[in-house]
């Protein structure tokens, strides 16, 4: 999941970033109606759990190994043994009480590890279901003469397991969200380069769809570049923008105005036939905008404003031919 291949288990702020503070944990417990009584009941199961832990875990891993999709996670014996031991610890932790912050942190770590090895939620949920069935069966057997107690104990266990599941799934989702927002950031940065073509002339080629947020960011970046690079003319090329709606058009007008307020000139190039037709049809007032057909024409227009006159070197032209 992470670049260095190490899962983010050592990240202490993960809980904070996920918004899992004391209050939130209490809210989750309250929602599940997980009370102190449940804690006591689970604690009382501990001794019994010690008895059947190994058995249940062996059965669970047999189940994992019976499916190709899950089998691939446990290809060598040492890995299998290690995870079995961890799983046993985890399993027994369910009946050890103290379901506090520390408990939640442990659960989140497990979620992170599973997300990082790419174990999908469906396998994860299936394993919980397997646990509940295996343990439920044993609880009912043990309380054969007190079915009410058995049911209560089973419900307590279910509540806790659902707390765990909630945490694990949230961790999965959170990890994905982190990845998505990182990628969005990367895309945004990649797609908005402000290039200096020559002294006082900047070029901003826009590629891809523009939404309000991106439009805003583009404008801010452009205005700052105008100041930092002392630009007099900016050519914005929108050949790569598939559609322009009234909002984007309005934004272009705003950008032109802001550029002018700073004492620079903005030229827009690359309005495609479709875009031009749309703009005229929806009635956007573009009279204030200086538009030129293509980027080349835009740069020529900019050179004219800057008083630059380019000439082909005739000697070179002949010698290279």
């Amino acid at each position, binding site marked *: 999941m992470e670049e260095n291949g190490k899962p983010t288990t050592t990240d202490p702020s993960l809980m904070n970033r996920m918004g899992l503070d004391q209050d939130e944990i209490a809210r989750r417990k309250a929602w599940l109606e997980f009370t102190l009584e449940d804690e006591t009941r689970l604690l009382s199961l501990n001794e019994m759990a010690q008895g059947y832990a190994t058995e249940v875990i062996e059965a669970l891993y047999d189940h994992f190994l019976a499916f190709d999709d899950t089998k691939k996670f446990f290809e060598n014996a040492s890995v299998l043994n290690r995870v079995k031991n961890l799983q046993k610890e985890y399993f027994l932790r369910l009946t050890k009480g103290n379901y506090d912050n520390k408990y939640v942190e442990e659960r989140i770590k497990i979620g992170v590890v599973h997300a990082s090895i790419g174990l999908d939620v469906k396998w994860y949920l299936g394993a919980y279901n397997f646990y509940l069935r295996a343990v439920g069966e044993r609880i009912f057997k043990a309380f054969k003469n007190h079915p009410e107690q058995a049911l209560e104990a089973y419900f307590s266990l279910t509540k806790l397991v659902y707390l765990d599941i909630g945490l694990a799934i949230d961790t999965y989702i959170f990890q994905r969200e982190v990845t998505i927002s990182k990628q969005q950031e990367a895309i945004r940065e990649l797609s908005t380069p402000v290039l200096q073509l020559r002294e006082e002339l900047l070029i901003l080629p826009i590629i891809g769809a523009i939404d309000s947020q991106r439009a805003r960011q583009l*404008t*801010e970046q452009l*205005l*700052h570049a*105008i*100041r930092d690079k*002392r630009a*007099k003319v900016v050519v914005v090329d929108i050949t790569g923008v598939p559609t322009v709606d009234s909002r984007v058009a309005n934004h272009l007008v*705003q*950008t032109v*105005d*802001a*550029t*002018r*307020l*700073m*004492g*620079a000139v903005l030229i827009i190039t690359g309005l495609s036939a479709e875009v031009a037709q749309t703009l005229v049809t929806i009635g956007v007032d573009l009279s*204030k905008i200086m538009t030129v057909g293509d980027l080349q024409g835009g740069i020529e227009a900019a050179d004219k404003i800057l008083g630059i006159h380019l000439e082909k070197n005739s000697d070179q032209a002949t010698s290279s031919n």
Partner: protein
Amino acid sequence: MKVPILKQGNILIATIQSALTDQDLNNLQNELSHQVSHYRSQGVVIDITELDVMDSFSTRTLRNIANILKLRGANTVIVGMQPDVAYAMVELGLTLPDIKTARDLEEGLILLQS
């Protein structure tokens, strides 16, 4: 805070150096209106490089100043507007369409002399 007004040839230069109160802006308008004929100036440069906020009142005053000076026979150029100010202004619809702008003092002077 009072805005210093300097005379440079036939041009007046007003450099705003900090945030201005409405009273300061009124004073600036008053002073420029008088001084422009006193010195028989052809143009006025208002440098707002140091301003990081422009509200609707200051925008309106700047526009008024430009229009008043026009009546008094001088052209006005506003120079040095910061990117964030420019963006905030257009978002508010304050685009100063009838006022000339330039990047900095130097360019403003060139613009007025051409």
